């Protein structure tokens, strides 16, 4: 989780990732940020994120992103 936090803070350091639950819905992350994030996640966690996983629910909070990562790492 800490590694994920570092990646997120590299993109938007001003966000409080512990409490923020609307990264996409509140337009804190735009599509540039999402693609940057996905690239970083794939590199760091050695997972494959596909277009079908690109839904707001998976990226709205640090917890949601972590859950997606856990799911992908299990596969």
């Amino acid at each position, binding site marked *: 989780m800490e590694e994920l936090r570092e990646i997120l803070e590299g993109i938007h350091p001003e966000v409080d990732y512990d409490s923020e639950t609307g990264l996409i819905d509140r337009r804190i992350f735009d599509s540039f940020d999402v*693609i*940057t994030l*996905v690239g970083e996640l794939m590199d760091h966690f050695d997972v494959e994120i596909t277009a*079908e996983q690109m839904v707001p629910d998976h990226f709205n909070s640090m917890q949601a992103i972590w859950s997606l990562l856990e799911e992908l790492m299990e596969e």
Partner: protein
Amino acid sequence: MSLISIEFLCFCLVLVLLFYLIKGPYQWIILLVASIAFYCFCGPKYIVYILVTATTVYFTARGIEGFSKKRDAYLADHKETLGREEKKAYKADIKSRQKRLLFLCILLNVGILATLKYLDFGIAYFNYYRLMLTGNTNLVLQPMLILPLGISFYTFQSLGYVIDVYYGKVKAERQYFRFLLFVSFFPQIIQGPISRFADLEPQLFTPKRFETERIKSGLYRILFGLFKKLVIADRLSAYVTRTAAFREDYKGIYLLLCIFFYAFQIYGDFSGGIDVAIGTAELFGIRLTDNFERPFFSKSIAEYWRRWHITLGTWFRDYIFYPLSVNKRVLNLGKWCRSHLGEGVGKRVPIYLPMIAVWALTGMWHGSESKYIVWGLCNCFFLILGTEAEPFSARIMEKLHLRNDMFVMKCYRIFKTFWLMSFLRVFDFVKTPRDGFCMIRDAFIKWDTFDWHEVYTTLLFPKEEVIVAFVAIILLTVVSLIQRKGRIADRLLKKSPWIQYSTLAAFALLILIFGSYGLGYDAQSFIYMNF
């Protein structure tokens, strides 16, 4: 039948009456019959195209879901006997079958759209280059194909649905006629918005009761749309068309005025049409997705494109940009660039390459001429420039002790974005990309030649028209400012009935008095209808 016609008004009146008389679970059948009838009124022979799209997409979605069910059943039956790798291989096999099915469906439907939209253009280019290069004067005849009504919109909406089924985001619709209604729902068929199945489907089939509030809300929206279209867009089109036609005779402020007016013309035309569509759908208790969010108040190009034609933007984002960005080949290219050309280039490739593709496609979506592709790529260029220049402009602002949240900076950014986007819009109404660039250049020279008298006389845009146009633009801006805090219709509905009905009457009167309609005006054609 145009959305702005007496015929459409009567059509809706009869329909509303029938819709609420029938009540219950069969109301959607009224909407389906009305949608097919509306399409037939607009050109009966083209119904075959929409039926082909609906049918192929319907069966593809069912097929894809069938494969998913087969996979789940097989995996459940062989839970104990199959190993992890075998399960993975089986899933991959099913996925590849689904992908092939989806690919065929997309190919067919995009093929129909591309043929109808670009064949004539392709033949014209072929003839031109063959003549230039070989001197061959035997021209290949252009079939002069006519685009079926709303083909770009319903094709995108249908493909969005089948891709969502493939992704497992929505379940495939079982009943063909219910799906046909989703594809052909008449208020949105002409120029959108491009709805998502998950948003529209539950609304289409839920029984509705007559609610005065909802009808009033729909009427407000329709009237506001008519105001934008008839009072603003159609009025400004007179000046824009004439100035563009005699572009070489006019420079400086004449062209700046033309560019300024066109920005409001296209906004009034498109968002006005969308308002009429959304308002009409609201009469039947259906809330379509908003397509605009006060785009002229955007502070950057990226923000502008998040607020203009929202449903097309999100369509391209979800079905083109994201799949391309996370595509293995694109990511590998990014990795290669990272190791050979540096971290910066490698990071940008998976973002900028899909972006260029999306903007080229967005341009092509708007039309077959090369000017639209140039327009799309210019937008892309400024988006990338904006992103790349951000650290640089942040440093300058820091040195000047400026912050983005300062009022003056907000105004400057809004002004800059508005004019930049308006200049790019020039490509819409010129003939060639070269004409567009020349017009932008000419707008900055010979400012001293401007004379209002010339506008009133030679350009046939009388003083009264100019005054009404500016007052209407100011009114639109004020309404947009008020809408920052929510929809005006929602607020009006909380006021007394007297205020509500007077507002409706005042708006109707305003349109009747100041609307551009009648002899010499063509309120039938929406600009985006041609896209």
